[in-house]
């Protein structure tokens, strides 16, 4: 990188961090202070450009930055201290890394003179985070700091986005430099812009034009690259049905006739049937995750597979690829579209529609008259008129949200897809609401996931964020309980969250009758200053949602739902569409 001869006043490394963040457009910073990052926090207090949010746990900080980034498309920023501060971010960084979310995390470190001496709050941050970040930096010399901050942000948001960590020792924060911030980036090993090979694009157009039964398989890459409109144009021009991954929900409107909704393990049967029947599968920004492919040898058995992806390592990783197109979706789709012929494909589209009608997402009624969790999701869709930004936790609540809400807009379904991080939902919805203050943000979580980061309720309260948290309380770790019922002879090892009926070695002696709800989420919410209500009857669901959605305050709604409802349909792990389980009791 060229450094201008331009002179900058001497300032400390800590000042540089804040200046750099301001320079790259950081408007919101999530973080938790501590000894090794105090100098930066001291400078932060002087900034009038950066709004600071204090979560109550560093994991919350990263998930908030992540939710912010997913909802807005901008880079999320966090600032934590050394040792435990940064080890607490690891789950959040790994979550963002798996899902390609642009984050920059700055961590304090003990002074360079005592690194490796088992100093107080010392951890080998770069070592620990190396495999859960897109890249990380250790800053040895304050003169490198301005360059590194610019590089980190560039790396985070270009190519396949991802989290980048900068580890800044305390003495580097205090040392002074006059090195200016310089725009531009040049590292010999990182050239993220690809237009896509023109010959490959032409070949892709030709196989699409010649296909009788093509299928678009759309993933999170379409959302990350803001190319939903182009995908819609492609689908309509050539009448290609569209199946979406969990990460791709919202990339193609599900109200569209060509939409086959989510595919894969808990996908719409129609989309999995189409996958089996298609003669051409065009993957757009998806990565053939095992939750999508099932049994690899029988994945899309009749199809040629074309794969458009920014990440060359995604090509052929798990599934054979007949035609790879590596590069950014936008230029590729723009070059592809004029070469695509208009086509009707009446029989094929008809067939897909028929499959859709035959097997919609359905659920049974509760034998005891309890609220069905799927019904709550349908009502969220209904009451919000389809406009809610849904942020899920992980497990049944996540799958029900994917299945029973009609996803029509990109960046309106945020979920930890790759890593499957429980405890993601609440902090992520807080980040999303901060990024999108006008949107109706709804977190759908379970009684398990809610307890993983419940401490963050207070952030929503103190910042007066009108988030809505929907807890589907079934008294179980529901998804694991479902797997135990289906594949482990109904042995409920460690999945019962209520105090009764646990297996013998988890048994709890109760002197008196247990309180009916433990923890009492209503009291928990109220202790933090949030509004809360417990709903036990189906007829009260809509009204409760409406009250919360209309309110400018943070709301926690606890729905006591059917304890043993299952996510259906299900293709068992490494199965095929023929193995689909439709109902299970």
């Amino acid at each position, binding site marked *: 990188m060229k450094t201008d001869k331009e002179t900058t006043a001497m300032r400390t490394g800590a000042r540089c961090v804040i200046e750099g963040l301001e320079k790259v457009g950081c408007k919101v910073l999530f973080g938790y202070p501590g000894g090794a990052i105090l100098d930066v926090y001291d400078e932060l207090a002087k900034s009038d450009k950066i709004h600071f949010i204090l979560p109550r746990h560093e994991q919350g900080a990263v998930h908030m930055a992540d939710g912010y980034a997913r909802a807005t498309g901008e880079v999320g920023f966090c600032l934590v201290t050394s040792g435990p501060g940064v080890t607490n971010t690891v789950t959040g960084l790994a979550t963002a890394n798996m899902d390609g979310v642009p984050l920059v995390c700055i961590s304090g470190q003990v002074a360079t003179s005592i690194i490796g001496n088992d100093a107080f709050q010392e951890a080998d941050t*770069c*070592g620990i985070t*190396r*495999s859960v970040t*897109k*890249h*990380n930096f*250790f800053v040895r010399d304050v003169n490198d700091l301005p360059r590194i901050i610019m590089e980190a942000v560039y*790396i985070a948001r270009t190519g396949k986005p991802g989290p980048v960590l900068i580890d800044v020792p305390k003495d580097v924060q205090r040392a002074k430099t006059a090195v200016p911030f310089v725009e531009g980036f040049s*590292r*010999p*090993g*990182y050239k993220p812009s690809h237009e896509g090979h023109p010959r490959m694009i032409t070949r892709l157009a030709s196989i699409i034009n010649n296909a009788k039964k093509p299928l678009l398989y759309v993933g999170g890459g379409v959302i990350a690259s803001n190319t939903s409109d182009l995908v819609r144009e492609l689908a309509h021009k050539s009448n290609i049905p569209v199946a979406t991954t969990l990460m791709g929900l919202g990339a193609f409107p599900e109200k569209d006739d060509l939409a086959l909704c989510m595919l894969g393990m808990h996908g719409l049967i129609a989309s999995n049937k189409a996958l089996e029947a298609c003669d051409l599968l065009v993957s757009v920004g998806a990565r053939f995750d095992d939750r999508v492919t099932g049994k690899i040898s029988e994945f899309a058995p009749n199809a040629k597979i074309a794969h458009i992806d920014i*990440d*060359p*390592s995604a*090509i*052929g*990783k798990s599934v054979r690829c007949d035609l790879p197109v590596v590069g950014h979706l936008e230029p590729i789709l723009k070059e592809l579209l004029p070469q695509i012929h208009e086509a009707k494909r009446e029989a094929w589209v008809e067939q897909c529609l028929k499959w859709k009608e035959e097997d919609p997402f359905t659920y049974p009624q509760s034998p005891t008259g309890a609220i069905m969790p799927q019904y709550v999701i349908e009502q969220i869709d209904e009451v919000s008129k389809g406009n809610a930004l849904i942020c899920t936790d992980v497990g049944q609540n996540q799958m029900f949200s994917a299945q029973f809400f009609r996803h029509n807009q990109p960046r309106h379904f945020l979920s930890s897809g790759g890593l499957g991080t429980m405890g993601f939902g609440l902090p992520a919805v807080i980040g999303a609401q901060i990024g999108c203050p006008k949107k109706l943000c709804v977190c759908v979580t379970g009684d398990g996931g809610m307890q993983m980061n419940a401490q963050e309720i207070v952030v929503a309260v103190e910042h007066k964020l009108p988030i809505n948290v929907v807890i589907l309380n079934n008294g179980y770790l529901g998804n694991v309980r479902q797997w135990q019922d289906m594949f482990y002879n109904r042995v409920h090892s460690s999945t019962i969250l209520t105090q009764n009926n646990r297996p013998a070695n988890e048994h709890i002696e109760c002197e008196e009758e247990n309180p009916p709800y433990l923890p009492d989420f209503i009291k928990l919410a109220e202790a933090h200053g949030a509004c809360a209500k417990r709903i036990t009857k189906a007829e009260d669901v809509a009204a409760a949602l409406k009250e919360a959605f209309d309110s400018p305050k943070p709301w926690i709604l606890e729905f006591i739902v059917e304890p043993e409802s299952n996510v259906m349909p299900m293709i068992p792990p490494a199965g095929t569409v023929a193995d689909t389980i439709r109902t299970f009791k």
Partner: protein
Amino acid sequence: MKHIINAIVENQPGVLARIVGLFSGRGYNIDTLNVGPCADPMLSRMTITVLGDDHVLEQVIKQLNKQVDIVKVLDLTSLRHLERELILVEIGAPRNKRPEIMDIATLFRAEIIGVRENSLTMQYIGTQEQIDDFLAMIRPYSIMDLSRSGVLAVSRGGE
């Protein structure tokens, strides 16, 4: 099968750990590893030999290529290339054994680089196969110390 992988990387701390992590994370053991500066002092060349499944290694190479501080990675195995390894070995050599040992050295064109009263230290450069042959010849004598550089390789006819 055995793969010889060449990686041009930025000459910076952390790069080696990143590379090694991508192999060890998949349970692959690196047989030999060699690092040295390139013509451009900002860059280093690493030569890695590893035994492994072709498909898995293809994925490892793609992952390596993706890293910010790794400039280029090449699997030389199926390309035209030259490879050499250097070995230093000290052999117990009492006066009466010396002629035989020096005979072996001459046959292999190994160099004697150190002589002590009861030992000889030899340097030998060759392909891994030649080195194995050389070692087979000297193994009957008492090997006091042995150090192998690991394979160095370059592709032929430019990159």
